[in-house]
């Protein structure tokens, strides 16, 4: 049986390798050229990440609308992200309510009618602290774990194994997590809002002696139904961004255990920045 098209002489590999090296050898550049090249590489990396995440979103949508997301994995993720996060979200929400109420009570006492404290606590919790603090907690609890899990699967060739078996990791791993995030986070934020409001009311009662009826009367003074929609819209956006960034960074992981650590850190930073930037975009988009 004929073996290869042209059998090389021993040592021919070295010559070919040298030729390949020469072909790719960088030429020396001036300082401005190097800076420009560095900026170009950064922009290229940014676009690569953006493109990678856009691809994940597109393929998740395809699997979602064709009903091909594995239900068992989706249910697991809803349980783990949603049910598993309820205790920490309740603790965070109640602490936010207590602190807001105490600080507001300190500033209002002797200066303003204390009923307004109810309005301050309700607005702070529902418009800002409930969604953002819940998102920050979930970045640590859910986002970091997703990146580390998928990153470990990447470096231990489990993602390659999925591909080799003709299975798409986006279908089996990414889509269930993104859809679970979109469903779980608004529910968690609603829980955080309720708990925060109740804890704020209790704190107001114990610290400045503001009764329950007065607290809720104050809360209703500046209440708009739109506020709850605004709060849950933020939650929806955060519930989408956190698993999306986490999955993308997990699948992009390279470089063994050290790489898993590096990409997980990068994912946490990116998710936090993403949540805060989205948070800053919401008022001009939805409150004006």
């Amino acid at each position, binding site marked *: *049986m*004929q*073996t*290869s*098209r*042209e*059998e*090389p002489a*021993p*040592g*021919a*590999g*070295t010559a*070919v*390798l040298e*030729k*390949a*090296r020469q072909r*790719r050898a960088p030429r020396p550049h001036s300082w401005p050229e190097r800076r420009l090249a560095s900026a170009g590489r950064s922009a290229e990396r940014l676009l690569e990440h953006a493109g990678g995440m856009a691809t994940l979103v597109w393929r998740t949508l395809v699997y979602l609308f064709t009903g091909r997301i594995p239900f068992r994995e989706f249910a697991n993720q809803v349980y783990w992200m949603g049910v598993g996060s309820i205790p920490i979200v309740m603790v965070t929400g109640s602490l936010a309510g207590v602190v807001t109420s105490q600080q507001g009570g300190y500033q209002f006492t002797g200066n303003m009618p204390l009923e307004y404290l109810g309005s301050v606590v309700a607005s702070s919790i529902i418009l800002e602290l409930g969604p953002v603090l819940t998102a920050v907690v979930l970045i640590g609890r859910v986002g970091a774990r997703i990146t580390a899990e998928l990153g470990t*699967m990447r470096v*231990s*060739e*489990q993602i*390659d*194994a999925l*591909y*080799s*078996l*003709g*299975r*798409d990791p986006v279908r089996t791993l990414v889509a269930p997590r993104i859809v679970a995030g979109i469903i779980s986070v608004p529910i968690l934020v609603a829980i955080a809002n309720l708990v925060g409001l109740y804890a704020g009311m209790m704190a107001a009662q114990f610290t400045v002696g503001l009764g329950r009826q007065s607290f809720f009367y104050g809360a209703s003074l500046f209440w708009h139904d739109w506020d709850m929609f605004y709060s849950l819209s933020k939650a929806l956006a955060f519930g989408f961004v956190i698993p999306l960034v986490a999955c993308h960074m997990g699948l992009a992981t390279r470089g063994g255990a050290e790489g898993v650590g590096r990409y997980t850190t990068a994912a946490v930073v990116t998710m936090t920045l993403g949540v805060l930037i989205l948070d800053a975009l919401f008022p001009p988009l939805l409150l004006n």
Partner: protein
Amino acid sequence: MNDVMVDYRDLYKSFDHPVLAGVDLAVGRGETLSVVGHSGTGKSVLLKTTIGLIMPDEGDVVVDGQSVCSATRQQMQALRRKVGYVFQNAALFDSMTVFENVAQGLSDEEQRGLGGKGLMARVVEALELVNLEPRKVLAKLPSQLSGGMRKRVGIARAIIGRPQILLYDEPVTGLDPVNGTVVHRLIARLGAELGVTSIIVTHDIEGTLPISDRVAMLDHGFIRFVGTADEFRDSDDPLVRAFLERDVPDNDELLV
């Protein structure tokens, strides 16, 4: 070669340095080809290009008439279904039991078609082929298995779908000699009885030579030698001799 199953056509691949520098190799239908060479010479990269896990910078791989580089997503999935891949570290899914891991080798449609009992029978059959006792391992997680058992579960997962091509990345590394021989016999049996085309990346030249139709040696990203097992044994090439005799040649450049 008239009936080529896997055709590597002038493959180039670089990461931070060139890894494949013009690999040109054809593997016949039903043939068992071993790829040997020092660590870091691109053997695993070559294997991964076969099913598009790594895409070459230049050149193409044609598998059973299908170009890997120009395949659509659907074509690539269909191509991968024809191929079983045995990973160096088994690459079992940590969160799944042995049963679930091996069953992953079948598509969802195949699993539904087989039903519960049929699927169990196929998984048991695959595990028995690799000398594992199904009763003892089916419900275990990969973390509860030894390295050798994990490797054999990985092989069971690769063969359960009855692929036309099997790619082995260091199939006996980490196995004791008995189980290493079991795996080598299994590779030979799959080739002889089912006509499976096998490409084996290995350092275990002693165990692999008897079951190989041909041997290719990668050196510096290039095919340095390719020939039958007998030609490999009789070769005067110093690097081939060093491999066979486990001897370090005087010329250190050969090992750079």
